[in-house]
């Protein structure tokens, strides 16, 4: 009984809508829209706006951090420069001070050395004089003793030496 090609069947018109289909499609579409608008869409939209806000704030924060970093860097640079100057100044000062100290020490050492030398010289002179005087006295003693010994020897010899006797007589003769 079905001998028709496309569309020949008049029992069911493919263009006319069917009541049940209309009702179900309208129900599903309206329920979909209601659920979507009320519940399902807002979280998705929220995360998207959150992301946009986060990206924006991240970019702003990054920009601020960059500016802050630049500021800090400049500050550090100037501090570093100041520190370097200060260090140079300190080193110069230390060098100067060290020079002064060295000169002072040198001077004092020289003075001390001179002092020591002077004192040594002085004590040397004193010692020398003491030794000389000692020597002098002992030389005197020795000379006296020698002289006395020579004299006693001479006196002994007078008794035995005719020459002396003669000399003595001659001396006596001339002194007369």
């Amino acid at each position, binding site marked *: 009984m*079905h001998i*028709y*090609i*496309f*569309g*020949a*069947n008049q*029992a*069911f*018109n*493919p*263009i*006319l*809508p*069917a*009541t*049940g*289909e*209309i*009702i*179900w*499609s*309208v*129900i*599903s*579409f*309206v*329920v*979909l*829209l209601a*659920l*979507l*608008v009320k*519940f*399902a*869409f*807002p*979280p*998705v*939209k*929220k*995360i*998207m706006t*959150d*992301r946009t806000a*986060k990206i924006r704030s991240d970019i702003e924060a990054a920009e601020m951090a960059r500016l802050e970093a630049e500021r800090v860097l400049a500050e550090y640079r100037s501090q570093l420069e100041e520190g370097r100057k200060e260090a140079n100044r300190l080193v110069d000062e230390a060098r100067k001070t060290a020079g002064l100290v060295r000169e002072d020490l040198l001077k004092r050492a020289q003075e001390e050395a001179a002092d020591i030398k002077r004192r040594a010289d002085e004590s040397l002179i004193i010692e020398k004089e003491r030794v000389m005087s000692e020597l002098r006295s002992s030389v005197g003693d020795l000379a006296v003793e020698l002289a006395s010994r020579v004299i006693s020897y001479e006196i002994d010899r007078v008794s035995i030496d005719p020459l002396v006797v003669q000399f003595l007589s001659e001396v006596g003769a001339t002194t007369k």
Partner: protein
Amino acid sequence: MFLLGSINFPPIGELLNWKSILFGGSALALNKIGLITIAAAVVTIVMFGLAGRGAKLVPTGLQNVVEYSVEFVTNLIVLDAMGPEGITWVPWLVGMFFFILFSNLFEVIPFIQMPATARTSVTIPLALISYITFVAVGIKKQGFGKYLKGALIPKGVPLPLLPLLIPLEFLSTFIVRPFALAIRLFGNMLAGHLLLVTFAILSEALFVKSLLLIALPLPFAMLVVVTGYEIFVSALQAFIFTTLTAVYIGEAMAGDH
């Protein structure tokens, strides 16, 4: 025709006349078309529900797809057709887009292979909802008189032409628009469905008939190509329907265009 005589092309009516599964005989009769529209709605809701529930700041998987589609509707449909004040319509239009898209896509889903939108029972209500919405928006935003005046009387038209133009504008805005919306979607999807059915029946018939087996690759290749093409058409028709709705609502909101 002799060789193909035994190929039984079913009548279109038979391809579209689905038996009711529930509530048969009553006005609430639920058949395959009704199930497909329910499935389209459920898939959309589940998709957004899952994407929104596990929403992360760095999106992955499904969330990416959903967010991309929202952005697509926002940028390419709403902002283009309605401007920034149309942004409140985004969820509404996203729902419409996905409902139509999934209703269309069941055309190529194996074992279902029926676009719900190949029935005027689905496209006419959708077009009517779109129609009622844009008319309501126009009246609410501009007031009845001003909206009607803006819609019917084009600016800068000489007075003598108005008697001719007003009926034309009325016809185009208030009668042709919803009709065209419904028929465009219905016609495209029905045609696609019939193409797929035709090539499927041809392939099946040639597979059985030994002599004509050599000709099988042709309709089968066409079946594959048309299936791919229908996926494209599904997305395109959903896009067109949603865009036109957005344009109409945007027009009603803005008034004079």
